[in-house]
């Protein structure tokens, strides 16, 4: 089912990008966690500053004094958008190019004339994409755990941290699959980055807007962020199994659609 030759080539081909993005994500994670002690020292000043924010905006962005008073809460406001976005940019754009790059550079002809079926090519490429995704995700998670130990002062809600990272993984995997689908329905482009950032940011803000006003509450349902939240201060915060399964099933469906398109695709010179 998986061609080891192709699998290792894909990992080698993406290693430079993987290293660069892993370093960016690690640096960003440490930066966020590193500034928490000084934010915590601001104490009352921070509370006053937060109070000036309109309640709806603060709610939409998950920014309030209570959330920012703990390292877990402070981290969650960044993790829920920026870290997901950074990892998502790498994994989704890799997903968008892992097949289309061969077509754009004309190497599809080389690959598809080898004794390997399109099904095996697709599955192998998806497995290498999954490996790359898990690598950057694990590196970031390990780095965050270290950062929590270093900067958390022993006051860490590990349960909330775990839930947050499970939700993060499901979101990242979902966004990654949308990248694969993008490449099936658009001509091989030089860069899918703009589209990827648009999708992730766009879906985040759709969810944020849905929290601001009731008339647009329905917008939240089209955003994956609606199903997997990062509200760590919610006393009932727990893993949204239905949300995670829903997104993973949707991602699976997206991959199936992408595979069907790839199976019948004409490879022109």
């Amino acid at each position, binding site marked *: 089912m998986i061609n080891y030759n192709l699998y290792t080539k894909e990992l080698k*081909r993406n290693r430079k990008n993987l290293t660069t993005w892993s370093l960016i994500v690690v640096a960003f994670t440490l930066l966020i966690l590193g500034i928490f002690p000084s934010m915590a020292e601001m104490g009352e000043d921070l509370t006053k500053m937060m109070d000036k924010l309109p309640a709806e905006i603060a709610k939409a962005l998950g920014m309030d004094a209570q959330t920012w008073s703990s390292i877990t809460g402070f981290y969650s406001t960044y993790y829920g958008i920026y870290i997901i976005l950074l990892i998502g940019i790498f994994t989704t754009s890799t997903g968008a190019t892992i097949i289309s790059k061969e077509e754009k550079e004309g*190497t599809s002809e080389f690959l*598809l*004339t080898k*004794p390997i*079926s399109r099904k095996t090519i697709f599955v192998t490429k998806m497995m290498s994409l999954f490996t790359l995704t898990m690598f950057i995700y694990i590196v970031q998670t390990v780095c965050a755990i270290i950062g929590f130990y270093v900067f958390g002062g022993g006051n860490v809600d590990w349960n909330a941290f775990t839930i947050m990272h499970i939700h993060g993984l499901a979101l990242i995997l979902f966004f990654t699959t949308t990248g694969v689908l993008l490449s099936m329905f658009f001509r091989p482009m030089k860069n899918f980055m703009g589209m990827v950032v648009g999708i992730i940011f766009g879906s985040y803000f759709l969810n944020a807007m849905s929290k601001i006003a009731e008339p647009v509450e329905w917008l939240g349902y089209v955003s994956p962020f609606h199903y997997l939240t990062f509200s760590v201060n919610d006393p009932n915060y727990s893993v949204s199994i239905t949300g995670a399964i829903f997104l993973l099933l949707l991602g699976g469906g997206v991959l199936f659609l992408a595979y069907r398109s790839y199976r*019948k695709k004409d*490879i022109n*010179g």
Partner: protein
Amino acid sequence: MLAIQTTELSKYYGDSIGIKGVSLEVREGEVFGFIGPNGAGKSTMIRALLGLLIPTSGSATMLGKDALTQGYEIRKQIGYLPAEVNYYDEMSSRELLEYHSRFYGEVDHSEIERLAAYFELDLDKQITDLSFGNKKKCAIIQSVIHNPKLLILDEPTSGLDPLMQNRFFELLEEQSKKDVTIFFSSHNLSEIQRMCDKAAVIRKGEIIAIEDISALLKKQMKKGRFVFKEKPKDVKFPEGIQHEQWHTNKLTFEYVGPLNVLVKWMSGLDLVDAILEEPDLESIFMNYYER
């Protein structure tokens, strides 16, 4: 067994024709030419055979297996040399050939070295730094390194200098002696003439002729050059004369038809000199093409 058999194979791109109703048979061990001008459908045909394009209708078998459903089994035994060579820029030639070989099993390092030396290819150079000719050499090596039973060549000599073209033909002769079937697509007729036993002529996506090369060459077509004392006022040409051109008192033409008709006609002319030649493949091909 037939190495290639297509039945009414068609590929349309929307309303435009790639290939239409192509039926041909290539026997095992044969060196089969596929002639046609650019855009005639040669590459579309090859791409449909290799499973790169999904045919609109018709069927194709290669080495006794269905090209659409048993492509994986077929591709184990096929070597393909594309017209345009696109490889992974980040690899060296050696890495590319090893990557290619691993799809078929073990890497035969000594054979890679032997062929690279034969074609004077620097295996450690990055693909991105190779000229088109050197990329083509790499493509030639990857097409034969896994000992295929069927070689599919699409404009194989483009980009090669004459010395390398000769070496390439020697390699093909070596392959042919090993009973490898060769499907040789080209618009270069002298190459087809040199290498092939049989050829199909494709025009606007349709096969217009399939002939043995020797039969093609022996077609009753003649090229004639007559010199008259002076240009006759009125010459009645027999049926079969075509492309006649006068240059003062000299007439050049092509003739397709029984030779005795031509000789009878000549006997009634006031000729100073007459030359009748066997046509080259180019003229025969053009004759087909213009029909």
